Structures are given as C-alpha cells and as structure tokens.
C-alpha cells in the first residue's frame, strides 16, 4: 500500500521549509545576497521571489555585517528573519553581530527580548572554490553561548530542522554542506519539525561508535557498510546539533560499543571531536572504553584549490574505514 515516498533534494527541502513558514507566518521573511531573481548562489531560494515578492525575499547589498545586524534588529522587534550568507566563510564579516549582538542580547537585557533569527550558512569544501569559500566554521559559532548551531545531514532533517529553527525563539545558525544540496532523499509533505539538540543513531552496531556531522554522516555510513563485510559492526550517530550537544546519546552508545571515533570536516584541533571526546572522558562511559578515542577532522591547513589536495585535507571514506579498522583490531 505504501507509495514510494516523495524525494526532494536537500536544497529543495530547505526551500520548501522556507515557503511553508512564509505561508504560515507573515513575520517570516528572507534576506540575503542575490536570493531574489538570481535564486541564491546555490539556488536554494530559487523562484521564491515570484511567489512571495521582493519584500519577503529581500536582496541585500553586499553588506554581511550590516545585513546580519538588520536581521537581528528585525528579530528583536517582532519579525522572523531568515538571513542567508552566500558562503559560510562570510560569517567572518558578520561575527560582531552574530557573537556580540544576536547571541548575547537576550542575556544582556535580562530576558526582555528574544532574537528569533535564523542564519543559513552554505559550508564546506569539495567545490573547488579554494580557501575563502570552503570553510567549515560551525565550531566557531558552537563556542558561543546564546546561539544554537545545527548541521542537518539529510533532506528530511534539513526541512524539519529549519522549520524548528524558524519557530525557535533564539538565534539558530544552520550549516548546510554545499555537496549535500543536490542529494535526494525522502521528505514528507507539509509541516513537521525535527528537534534541535537531539542526535540520532543512523545505524546500530556493537563494535564501535562513530559520531559524525553533516556530510560525514554519509561517509561514515559508507565506511560502516564496507566494514560490515569484514565483520565489524559500526554504530553511526548523526550529531545534527553542535550546540546544544546531545551528550546523552553519545554516552549511551559508547557504553554499548566501548569504542569511539568522531569525524567532522571542520578543523580537528580544538574542534567538535574534542568536545565529543571530552564528553566521554568526563562521563562514566569512560570506564567502558576498550581503546583510545580517535578523532578525524579537517587538516591544519586552509582548503586548497587543487582537487587532489582538496580531498586530502578532509576525512574521506577510506580514512574512516582505516581508522575504525585499526581501532577495532587493536592496532591503536
């Protein structure tokens, strides 16, 4: 009786979430560079301007700092802006408004205001765009109390988490890996939300826990498939949210598997994997560990242009397979 579930690309899923939110709530509007007739640098807003008009799909000047500040001010005064950064790298131009204003306004003002702004960040490498258009800066923003930072890995979650973000009373930063935009997957029609702050076990396994973020969830699942052929049973957790971190799901998994690998594209040092590792080190799951914790992450370099070099600086499926194999076989 089940029809084949409807499939959308990740970009279409985000667009659908924004359209639904704008239909349901007049306060929701979009701001960003070239999101109108151009449709956004990655065609995420697409033709929304035709449906909702230029007042609700607002092209901004190339003014990331000012634009982010306008979004913060509008959010403080009753609107629900969704601000698209053309590339996540451009967050660096707007850190003042994100870190000093959006994140802290409610606190500084003793709870007298909320800042229900959503900021969208096309992130990650793999497009040949080199060092200034390929970064993964989610750990930067994850370090700031007052923000929520999410990284949906599937079209289903992109729609559901974005809808949750739009309805959230606090500032939510959503990092969308550019290589996921074209990925298709089942996406339910209509409104639904996927909770912020909740990780999900994507694949159950007994031998090792892999905690992955964003595109690395898919790479980890591929690695798990390969290793299943070798008799290694990998549990894959999709972290989904960088802040607030769902520590409990990780702890419960490691209690079961006794081994932990974390994998993300953002730079390894002082990164999300360190926080995941510390979560286990500080919990009773530490007693269950049979092997050292392994962290995979971005190399200590800017993202290079050359495609081979570009691949080499972020974890790939064979890197994950090798790390897990070594860990489980006791070579580490």
């Amino acid at each position, binding site marked *: 009786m089940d029809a084949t579930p409807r499939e959308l690309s990740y970009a279409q899923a985000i667009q659908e979430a924004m359209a639904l939110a704008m239909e349901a709530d007049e306060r929701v*509007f979009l701001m960003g560079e070239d999101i109108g007739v151009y449709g956004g640098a990655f065609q995420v807003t697409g033709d929304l301007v035709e449906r909702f008009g230029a*007042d609700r799909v607002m092209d*901004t*000047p190339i*003014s990331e*700092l*000012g*634009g*982010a*500040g*306008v*979004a*913060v*001010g*509008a*959010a*403080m*005064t*009753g*609107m629900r*802006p969704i601000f698209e950064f053309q590339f996540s790298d451009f967050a660096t131009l707007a850190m*003042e*408004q994100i870190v*000093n*204003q959006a994140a802290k*306004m*409610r*606190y*500084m*003002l*003793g*709870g*007298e*205001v*909320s800042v229900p702004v959503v900021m969208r960040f096309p992130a990650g490498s793999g497009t040949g765009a080199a060092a200034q258009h390929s970064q993964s800066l989610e750990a930067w923003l994850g370090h700031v*109390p*007052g923000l*929520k930072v999410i990284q949906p890995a599937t079209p289903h979650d992109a729609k559901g988490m974005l809808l949750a973000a739009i309805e959230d*009373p*606090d500032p939510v930063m959503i990092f969308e890996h550019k290589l996921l935009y074209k990925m298709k997957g089942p996406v339910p029609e209509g409104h639904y939300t996927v909770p912020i*702050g909740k990780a999900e076990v994507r694949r159950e396994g007994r031998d090792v826990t892999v905690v992955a973020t964003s595109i690395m969830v898919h790479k980890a699942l591929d690695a798990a498939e390969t290793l299943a052929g070798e008799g290694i049973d990998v549990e894959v957790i999709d972290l989904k949210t960088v802040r*607030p971190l769902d520590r409990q799901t990780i702890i419960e998994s490691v209690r079961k598997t006794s081994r932990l690998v974390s994998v993300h594209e953002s730079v390894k040092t002082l990164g999300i994997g360190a926080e995941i590792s510390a979560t286990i080190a500080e919990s009773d799951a530490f007693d269950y560990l049979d092997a050292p914790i392994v962290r995979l992450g971005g190399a200590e370099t800017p993202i290079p242009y050359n495609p081979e070099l570009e691949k080499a600086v972020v974890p790939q499926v064979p890197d994950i397979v090798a790390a897990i194999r070594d860990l489980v076989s006791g070579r580490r």
Partner: protein
Amino acid sequence: MGAARKRTASGDALANLPFAFRQYDAATLRDVLRKMYLIRRFEEGAEDSYTRGLIHGTMHLSIGQEASAMGICMPLQPADQITSTHRGHGHCIAKGADVKRMFAEFFGKTTGYCKGRGGSMHIADVAGGNLGANGIVGGGIPIAVGAALSAKKMKTGKVVVSFFGDGANNEGAFHEALNMASVWKLPVIFVCENNGYGMSTSTERSTAVKNIADRAVAYSMPGVIVDGNNFSEVAEASHAAVERARAGEGPTLIESKTYRYRGHSKSDRNRYRTKEEIDDWMTNRDPILAFETELKEFGIIDDAGIEAIREDVKREIEEGIEFAKVSPSPDVRDVAQFVYTEEPA
C-alpha cells in the same frame, strides 16, 4: 506661566521665538529642564556611587550632552524605539526610563532593567522603547535599521532613533546601515553625537570629512548639523527628521555637536585635551545653563522654580540610589537564566 501665554497671543513675537518655545507649552519646557537635571544628577550619583565602591566595572558619562539626548527624544512617542551607546544613560532617561530601575541595574540588582546582567553599558528599557545601550561602537546602528524594517513591514508607524558617537562613524556598520536604510527608505533617524573625541582620538585626526553629517550625501539622505548643546536646535532637527521618517520618506543623519565633560571612561587621564578646553565648554556652553537662561528670559521659570526642580531631582536621585541599595541581588544559581528563551534540557 502667564508670560508664555501672553507671548502666544502675539503672532509676530511667536515667529521670532526659537523652535522649542513655539512648539511646546510652558509646563513641557519646565519638564525638559527637569529631565536634563535628572540626567546630570543621575550620572553624578552613579559616579559618586562608583567612587564609593557601590558600583563596579566602569561607566561612560554623558555629562555635558544632556540637551542632545532630550532634544532628540522630544518628538518620539512611547512606542517609538531607540538604540543607544556605551554613553547611553541620558538617552535612557530621555526616552522615559525610571532612574530607580537604572540605579538598580548599575548596582547589579534583580530590580534593574536588565536584572543585573547588563549594567551601565547595556542599560535598556525595552517596554519604554529603548532597545539597549551597546558596548560595541556602531553595534546598535544596523539593529536600529532592523527595528525600522520591522516597523515598515508591520506597518506600526513607529520610528527608530539610533544614537551613536563620532567614533562610530568610522565603523563599517555605520556605512552599511545607512546605505540599507536609504535604499529601503526606512523610518530611522541616525543621530551622531559628536563630542569631539573617540576615546582619545579627535575627529580631526580620525575622520576624513569635516562634518560627520557630510557623510549623508553618500547615502542620499539629509545631513543636518545642530549645536548639540542647544536644546531647541536639537529638538527642531529631530522633529523634522521624525516627520520625514513617519511620512515614509526615509532616514536622516543628524550630527549633534557636543562635548563630554568627563573622561571617556573611568580609566581616562585626560591627556589628549586641555583643561582650558574643558573649562571653556563647562563655563560658556553648558546645555542646562543655556536652556535655563532661555527659560528665564522668556519668563517661563524663575529662580525659585529652578530651585524647586533641583530639589525635586535631588530627592528622586536619592530615592533611586536607596531603592538600588535595598534591592535583592540575583541568585548565583540563576546565572544561566536568559541565555536561551527555553533552556535546553
């Protein structure tokens, strides 16, 4: 006052009066004087409490700039909004805040406007339309534009004033915000209170244009220069800008030239300006003294009336400080309250 009424009977005499004396009745003008005193005595009270160790941190006093804050806020309705600066006590009072809750905030108490989380540098009165002072130079300017965007989208009829200092005019946020406000014709008034120095660096040394209002040309909006120590002149410019904003004609940049008597903050040794310069402003261009003189000249108040205002303000300040002293401090266990609207489980 009878004298004021007599003047209103004569059309010709009226036309020659400064704007404020044509625009406001005598009671309103006396209340303006009272509020200017309230701002000054509030800051003196805050400074004194700081010296006594009752307030920690630092503070940035706007003593000498009272006419600017009052003049700009005169045409604003309670629902209109402002964003303010680190030197924002005057803006907060001029917009209508209660000095009791301001002192309580400075004392770090739960009865303060920010429940002890913000202090002087983040003083706000959201219900009264003050979206907050800001510790980042220029930080409030794009936020004001965002508030004006909300007003336009929600058709509330509100206007938004963004106060900032001369230092902020060299921040990128200033330029980006003015440009967007003009492109989108938003109901916002940019008020640069130019007190001559961004901390220690004079505008001559920091700013390529002679007048900050000259920058308005680049953003296709009126740029108006006023004597920030002349209440009437400031109020007149603000009325015009508010009218323009409410009519949907877009933003205005007002440069209010003024002077701060105190140092930048409590760490200032005043090495970048002369005592003679400070004395000259205090003696010859004090905004409260100037306004008082005008009020007396036009028969709106006499010495006894001024004395009564001073006494009344003194009492209000004393009561405010007492309220702050006896108010409860926040519980340390609540330190994470207000980080998020709903705290994550």
